[in-house]
Each structure stands twice: as structure tokens, then as C-alpha cells.
């Protein structure tokens, strides 16, 4: 384990975040921590109420609780126990997904559900694959660099210290990383399966560099977290506690430092005092009854669909078109990565269901290539669809009936790669409110998505490259399904309110004590999976908040004494 050698570089993880040592030594969640959790009264004015306990919300809760803030984090879904609530089964994992109604539209509508967002403490990372790459420095200034997308109000170097912290806390395993800002990882790379072997063999033949990792699965024990058993159900929630999600990487430490995590609480509105212009708390539904939590500060971290939806639902006399939406920016520039997956047939049995689906990546085509007609690029990674998802791949080729069955009988012979293409942000790709309502009577989100010309070229280029790699590895047949993954944007970070919803510190331009701390603040998305960046951004916001102490224990003490 390399961890020890890097301690001086990164500081002691356990001193910063004890989660892995607070978990039980056999799988499950520490029930004592939950039973003894701090419980605030709704009339208490807590330092901060956080909406959503996923990548962004979970990280923020841990950081602020540790700094001594009174924190209440609300999540619409359950407080999971991996041992009793999750199953090692594809179909049986349906309850992990956000399955409240949503409408999809546009020329390229993006199916949601299992493919996009989660519900419950841990958020979408409960069922994310586990890839945790950093963004490249170029991602923060695509407009200046390539004349497309947008520039962020922060740069890569602003985020780098937080990438390093989070890579330690998850922790991340992988080979030394040659792309973007070259760096190494706290844990050595995992052993790989037949699917990874195929990818590496194909890349070697073509002279394309590929690397094992980066995955948020410790290669060995980490605190009380056991090692991976290579069972391949990462996208169904890791029952073993080997794969990182905020549920096990940040929530235990947050609880130990006095945060209250309130599950099954669907936030319906952010409350703003129209006279002072400040947020005063939130209303939420629990068991059909509306409650209210008062707070000195509010952070919204409900995912790129629910966050804009909540702001739009929080219209008031002062904010007639939706909270923070005077400039029409809420819900705009929602992005998805183009995520075509190509499978190749091999004479040998690949049995791609074995081992974690996230194994090997290649970022060789990530940056703009001046020789190509399109801007920006794509990454390629192993993916290993289980049978139900794989059947979707076969159906996408037009097969049904006996042909579908025949392809499926051949499942063990196919290896599968996935690309992530940087599709560009467009104002017209947006979350708006639909006429349909959910079970609380609240209008549901309509997510409208259409690709641009650059996007289509990237998708085609990525497919060709995956076919070449698989063929080079010996595939006799290939098939590709065109799909999308990883929604981000919708309340983007910008230098001015004309261009976005939050500033460089992720504070909304419109309401001084309202923050957005999830993937919706991303102005561009690169070709990297977003979770590590979302968590790192949230950790950065926490540093900013605790450094300035606009609220929190110091301010509260001041108020008492003053």
C-alpha cells in the first residue's frame, strides 16, 4: 500500500475524516452513530440546512460539521444500510434510482432512471461505477483555449488541493496518471479482469497509452472497509463497503461531529424573506406532511435536475420567475456526456461481469486535436454491462425475438468499452417545470436535450476509436449503442449573474446566504466522470465558508455575546 509514503504530502487522512474507521468491521452501517445522531428541533435556527446528501451535499455536511457548525442535511430518499437494503442483483436495485416522475424531450431525449441519478443518503454515488478522474487544466478555460463552451471563474490550481484531499479520503487506486496535470494515486492499481485485459491489449497494438484506474475502490483494506471481492455489481451499490460513496466516506464522520441527516425528507421550497432578500430555511415533505426547517444558510445539492427544479419551485413575490432566476439562467446549460458503448466479440470467454466494471481508462483523445474538424475530445474506459443492460445494447441494434436470444446466449464472449465525449453546453438544453405533478402535487422536471454538430462528430469519432481498439485486440464483430451519461450544469458558476447562477465561491448571485454545491454548478464537463470534481468543489466551498465564518459557531457566539 502506497498510502503510508504519501502521508506527509497529503496530511493524515484519519485526522481529517475518520469515516472509514467509524464503520463496522463487518459490512453494513454503524447503527450506533445513527441512533445517537444529534436531532435538532425544527424551530432551531441551525447554521446550515443542506438539501441532498450525495456527492456535493454529503461532502459539505462532513466538512462543516467537523468545523463545528450545526448542520441538518435532508435527503428525499432512505438512509441506506448496504448490508440489509441492497442486493447483488441488477433488477432488484431499482430502489436506488430516482424514480419520481420526470419528462424528457428534445431531439435527443436523455433517458434517466438507472442511467442517471440516485436517491437516498450517498446520492448517485451509491450506484455510480466508481471512476474518479480529475478534470484537465484545459477544462477550466475552453472558451479561451478552443473558442467553445465557457470559462470557469476558477482554475484547475484552485481545485488541485481538494482533488488531492478527496483522492485520499475515498481513497482512489490507479497507476501514475500521465494526462492533464500528471499525478499519482494513494493506492496501487487493482488487478483487472478479462474486459480490462482486452482493452489494454488493443491499446498496446495501436500504440495508445492506457492506464488502470482511477477508481474509488481501495486496493486492500482501508480503515474498517474490506477489500473488493470482484463481484461486479458496483452499479447496484457496493454491499461490501469497498467502493466509495459519501454514505461511507463522509456521512459517518459528519454524524460523529454532530450533523443530523434526515432521510425521507423531500424539500419542496427554499424559503426567502422578500424584505431582507435572505434565505431563512426550507420546507419539506415527510410522510406526506409539510415541515419547515429554519437555518442561517441554505445549500442546495439535489443533482442537476432536482436543484434547478427546486429553485424554479421556490418562486416568491420577489423572485417571480423562480429563485435566483432574474436573468433566466436557472436550469440552463444542462450537459450530458455522449457515452456510446461499443462491444466486441472474442473467441475466448471474456465474462465481463466479473470484477468491477471500472478498470482501465485512456485520456489520450481528451484534448482538442487541431487536425480534427471538431473541438474538445473524449475519454475511453471499460464498462461491463450486466445482462439486463446488455440486452438493451442488443435491442439497440434492432434485434428482437430469436436474434435477441441468440446474441444474449453469446454474452460471455463480448467485451465492452465506453466513451465519454465532452458535449458542449447550450442555453437551449434545459430543465423546466412540466404540467405533470409528483405525488406531493409539485410540478415535475422536463429535461430538454438536443446535440449540436460538434457533439455528433465527437460521438462518431469515439465510436470509431473504440471499434479500432477492440478489433486490434482480436474482436471479430463489434456493435455500438449510442447513449448519454452524467448530467451536470443547470446552475452554472460564472463571473457575472448574466452568465450563471453562482459565483466562484458557489454562492448564488441573488441570495447572499444561499449556496449550490452539487454538479449543477459545472460550466463545462470535460470528458472525465464528474463525481470527484463535484466533491472537491464542495470541499473548497466548505473551506471558504469556514475561513470567512459568515455564520457557524463563531458568528453564533458573537451574536450571543454581542
Amino acid at each position, binding site marked *: 500500500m502506497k498510502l503510508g509514503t504519501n502521508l506527509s504530502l497529503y496530511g493524515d487522512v484519519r485526522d481529517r475524516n475518520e469515516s472509514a474507521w467509524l464503520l463496522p468491521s463487518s459490512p453494513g452501517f454503524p447503527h450506533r452513530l445513527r441512533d445517537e445522531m444529534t436531532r435538532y428541533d425544527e424551530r432551531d435556527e441551525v447554521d446550515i440546512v443542506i438539501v441532498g446528501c450525495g456527492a456535493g451535499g454529503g461532502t459539505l455536511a462532513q466538512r462543516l460539521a467537523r468545523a463545528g457548525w450545526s448542520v441538518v442535511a435532508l435527503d428525499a430518499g432512505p438512509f441506506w444500510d448496504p448490508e440489509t437494503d441492497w442486493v447483488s442483483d441488477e433488477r432488484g436495485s431499482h430502489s436506488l434510482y430516482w424514480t419520481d416522475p420526470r419528462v424528457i*424531450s428534445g431531439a435527443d431525449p436523455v433517458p434517466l432512471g438507472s442511467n442517471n441519478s440516485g436517491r437516498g443518503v450517498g446520492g448517485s454515488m451509491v450506484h455510480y461505477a466508481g471512476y474518479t478522474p480529475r478534470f484537465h487544466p484545459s477544462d477550466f478555460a475552453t472558451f479561451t483555449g478552443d473558442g467553445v463552451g465557457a470559462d470557469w471563474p476558477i482554475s484547475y490550481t484552485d481545485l488541485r488541493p481538494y482533488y488531492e484531499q478527496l483522492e485520499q479520503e475515498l481513497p482512489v487506486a490507479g497507476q501514475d496518471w500521465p494526462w492533464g496535470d500528471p499525478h499519482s494515486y494513494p493506492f496501487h492499481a487493482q488487478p483487472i*479482469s478479462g474486459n480490462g485485459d482486452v482493452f489494454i491489449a488493443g491499446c498496446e497494438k495501436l500504440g495508445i497509452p492506457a492506464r488502470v484506474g482511477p477508481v474509488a475502490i481501495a486496493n486492500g483494506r482501508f480503515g474498517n472497509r474490506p477489500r473488493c471481492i470482484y463481484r*461486479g455489481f458496483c452499479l447496484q451499490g457496493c454491499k461490501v463497503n469497498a467502493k466509495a460513496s459519501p454514505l461511507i466516506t463522509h456521512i459517518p464522520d459528519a454524524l460523529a461531529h454532530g450533523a443530523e441527516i434526515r432521510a425521507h425528507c423531500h424539500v419542496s421550497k427554499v424559503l426567502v424573506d422578500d424584505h431582507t432578500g435572505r434565505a431563512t430555511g426550507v420546507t419539506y415533505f415527510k410522510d406526506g406532511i409539510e415541515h419547515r426547517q429554519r437555518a442561517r444558510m441554505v445549500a442546495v445539492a439535489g443533482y442537476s435536475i432536482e436543484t434547478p427544479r427546486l429553485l424554479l419551485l421556490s418562486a416568491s413575490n420577489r423572485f417571480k420567475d423562480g429563485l435566483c432566476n432574474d436573468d433566466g439562467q436557472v436550469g440552463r446549460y444542462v450537459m450530458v456526456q455522449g457515452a456510446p458503448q461499443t462491444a466486441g466479440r472474442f473467441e475466448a*470467454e471474456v465474462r465481463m461481469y466479473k470484477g468491477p466494471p471500472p478498470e482501465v481508462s485512456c485520456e489520450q483523445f481528451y484534448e482538442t486535436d487541431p487536425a480534427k474538424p471538431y473541438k474538445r475530445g473524449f475519454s475511453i474506459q471499460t464498462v461491463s454491462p450486466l*445482462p439486463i443492460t446488455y440486452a438493451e445494447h442488443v435491442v439497440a441494434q434492432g434485434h428482437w*425475438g430469436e436474434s435477441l436470444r441468440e446474441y444474449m446466449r453469446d454474452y460471455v464472449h463480448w467485451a465492452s468499452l465506453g466513451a465519454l465525449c465532452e458535449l458542449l453546453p447550450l442555453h437551449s438544453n434545459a430543465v423546466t417545470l412540466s404540467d405533470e405533478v409528483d405525488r406531493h402535487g409539485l410540478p415535475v422536471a422536463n429535461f430538454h436535450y438536443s446535440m449540436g454538430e460538434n457533439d455528433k462528430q465527437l460521438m462518431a469519432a469515439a465510436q470509431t476509436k473504440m471499434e479500432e481498439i477492440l478489433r486490434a485486440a482480436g474482436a471479430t464483430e463489434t456493435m455500438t449503442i449510442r447513449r448519454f451519461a452524467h448530467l451536470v450544469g443547470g446552475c452554472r458558476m460564472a463571473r457575472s449573474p448574466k452568465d450563471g447562477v453562482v459565483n466562484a465561491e458557489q454562492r448564488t448571485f441573488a441570495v447572499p446566504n444561499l449556496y449550490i454545491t452539487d454538479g449543477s454548478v459545472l460550466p463545462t464537463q470535460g470528458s472525465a466522470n464528474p463525481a470527484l470534481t463535484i466533491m472537491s468543489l464542495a470541499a473548497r466551498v466548505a473551506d471558504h465558508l469556514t475561513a470567512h465564518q459568515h455564520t457557524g459557531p463563531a458568528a453564533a457566539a458573537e451574536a450571543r455575546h454581542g
Partner: protein
Amino acid sequence: MNPSVVFIADRNRGRTPGSSPPRFPGFDVLNEVDRWDAVTAGVVLARLTPSPELSFFTGVEQATAEALCDQLLAQHEEPRIPVAALIDVRLATGETDGWHYADMPEDAQAWRQTLAFLDNDAKRQGGTSLSQLGQQQQAALVQAVQELDAQSWHGLPATHVWSLWTRYACTAFYSHPWAWNEIGFPGPAYPRGYKNMGLDAREKFEVADAANTDPVPWTRRAEAAKRRQAAAVTGESS
């Protein structure tokens, strides 16, 4: 192991849907049931005994749904995975995928409507409902919907109807242990995990593929024949 689990497992020993010779002879995911965790075993074994009393589909809808699912998954003989019954459970409990296309009704309503449309099409072919037509005519009707692609079928975009049907049908079929036996997939893997990874590496409980036939040339021929047949059937009756 608890006796009812043993009973369910025994009754399902080594089964694959239909009667073609298995590509993974002797492979039986249920051999490993006692190495599954109890929560997962409960969820998976429940699929082997869905209630015969459907509660979402009406009797007429049930017959059409069964005929449609049998076509989509080529289940033309026993034993059959009860695909329509598994879909019925989802629709009865409102367990949707959480999204629907803006140009489609929500899923439950979309199922009712599209089953009725299939029966309408069957009437035009001289039948009373989809299930009353011969196999080839049924296949031709289903094929016709797929071939419409982005065009409208009874006012709905055919691709979105196709997506609804195949998503629900494949989810039901490939969640069933008999289907896993057919494709060589061992199903639940906790707390057992896998030890032997790599090309052609197998665990003790995995069985080698006995046929190793590339599906591509076969399906190319079969699908061309199916299209010719469908054209002949629809041609005859119009």
C-alpha cells in the same frame, strides 16, 4: 437452507426457457443459492413464483401482453419465463423507470393504450386480437411497429413505443435465473465474489460455452428471412 428455498430451487433445477439444447450444459445458478446473502436470495427467488393473479392488466390485455412478450423474446414453447406477469407486478405497484418521453403517456397508460392498438391492428388482419393470430402474423405485426422507426404508430412515435416494450420485457426476462442459465451468467455474487479473472478463466461453478457460435451471421440470415415473411404476410392481407 430454509425448506421453502430448497423446494423452489429444486423445482427449477438447471432450467432454461424453451427446449433448445443449452450452450452451458449443466450450468445452474441455483446450485449456488446457499452462497448468496439472504436479502438477495429473497428478491431473486420471488421471481420464480410470481402470483398467477395479474392485477394491472385486464384479461384481454393480459392475453395481448403475453403474445407480445412471447414475440419479443421468442418464447414459443414451455417452460416460459412469465414475462407479462413480471411486468404486471411493476405496473400494478407503479414501479416505473422514473421518466417518460414527452410525446408518450406515462408508462402504465402507455402499456394499456399500445396493447389496445395491437389488437386493433390484429382486427385489420382479420383476427379478433393479437393472441388469436397465428405466430407468423403476430411476428409480422410486431415487426411492422419496429420498422416504422421514428414514424407515428396510432399517434405515438413507434421508436418510443418500441423502447417501452423492450425495456420492460428484457428487464423481466433477464432478471430470471432460467435466463441466466441460458447465457452462462452466475447471478448474485455476494458474499462469494469472483477469484479467477481473465480470458477463458472460470470459477468452479461456471460452465464453459459448449457451442461458441458467433451470433452475427446467423441473425443476419434469420432476420432477412423474417422480414421477407413479414412482407408476405402483410402483403397477403392488405
